[in-house]
């Protein structure tokens, strides 16, 4: 009897282990989704269409135009900030630096930081900011463009951005880091002000890097 209980218990333990192991290797896909019904070989097939990041056109710290296509083939992390931000931006970018340092030498990981205050954050201001942060090369872009376009794009990243004269620095925004896969689908959101969430982001990027291509296509 004792033996049966023990073996049942160990079996339970074993199965729970494999379960957590499995769930941690596949990241969820966020955002809205809609069913699409197609006719393939005379049969009705229903597929799921996941939300993706729409096209955009901004300028980076080098004055180069960056759009959706510039990120083709890259896993990337997006956030929203402004250089004169007195509240959460310094801590966000202290943490983002860690992401940058970790993946600096792996070519297909990028970071894009959208300025939500383009009237102040001109290209030279962004370049100066990047230089002082110690960011070189093309792994981390600081982007600016039309304010309305940036705010609208923030919605696709499921992030709220707003102007508010009462907030410190004149803007309210959430300090989220958004992880986007090569198919431009959102795979994770992380509070960029919390070091433990940023550690999770780094782990999740590694998971995404190892994700087999055929699985993503599903």
């Amino acid at each position, binding site marked *: 009897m004792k033996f049966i209980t023990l073996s049942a218990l160990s079996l339970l333990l074993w199965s729970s282990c494999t379960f957590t192991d499995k769930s941690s290797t596949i990241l969820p896909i966020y955002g809205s989704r809609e069913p699409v019904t197609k006719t393939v070989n005379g049969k009705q097939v229903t597929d799921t269409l996941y939300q993706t990041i729409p096209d955009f056109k901004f300028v980076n710290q080098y004055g180069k135009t960056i759009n959706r296509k510039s990120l083709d083939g890259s896993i990337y992390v997006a956030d929203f900030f402004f250089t*004169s931000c*007195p*509240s*959460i931006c*310094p*801590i966000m*970018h*202290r943490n983002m*630096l860690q992401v940058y340092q970790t993946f600096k030498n792996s070519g297909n990981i990028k970071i894009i930081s959208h300025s939500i205050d383009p009237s102040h954050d001109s290209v030279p201001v962004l370049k100066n*900011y990047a*230089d*002082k*942060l*110690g960011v070189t090369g093309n792994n981390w872009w600081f982007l600016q463009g039309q304010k309305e376009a940036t705010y609208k794009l923030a919605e696709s990243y499921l992030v709220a951005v707003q102007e508010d004269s009462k907030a*410190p620095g004149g803007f309210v925004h959430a300090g989220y880091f958004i992880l986007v896969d090569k198919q431009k689908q959102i795979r994770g959101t992380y509070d960029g*002000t919390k070091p433990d969430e940023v550690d999770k982001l780094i782990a999740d990027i590694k998971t995404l890097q190892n994700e087999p291509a055929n699985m993503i296509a599903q």
Partner: protein
Amino acid sequence: MKVSIITGLLTLIICMVYSCQSEDQIEYMRYYTAGQDLYKTKCQNCHGAQGEGLAALIPPLTDSVYLKANNAKLACYVQNGLKLPILVKGKAFNGQMPPAGLSPIEIAQVLTYVKNSFGNQMGLYNVQQVGKDLGKCD
């Protein structure tokens, strides 16, 4: 009987000496602990949990030489913010620090914390001294 009187007296003396010594210590600890909480809410986002700053954007608070040399001006910087370029740990910083929005007693507490953390050891900075230093702001 005699022994117990002597023991009692000795205990009394020890207690008196101990309480005298720790009066300063208690005040220092009161400032330091309150300052630690203020630091977390008002300073840590930019200057970091270890006072490490942020690259070349935000100066660290670990430069004891700078803190000593500018000791009398620090209260003004916290109260009014800072725009001037400053040289910390051999690096120039020319960003802007916003005013912290703290009362004189809070400035005394947070500066007592900063001046005795991150490798700095400058002792208590009380509210009387803050009052004097604030009177000399530019």
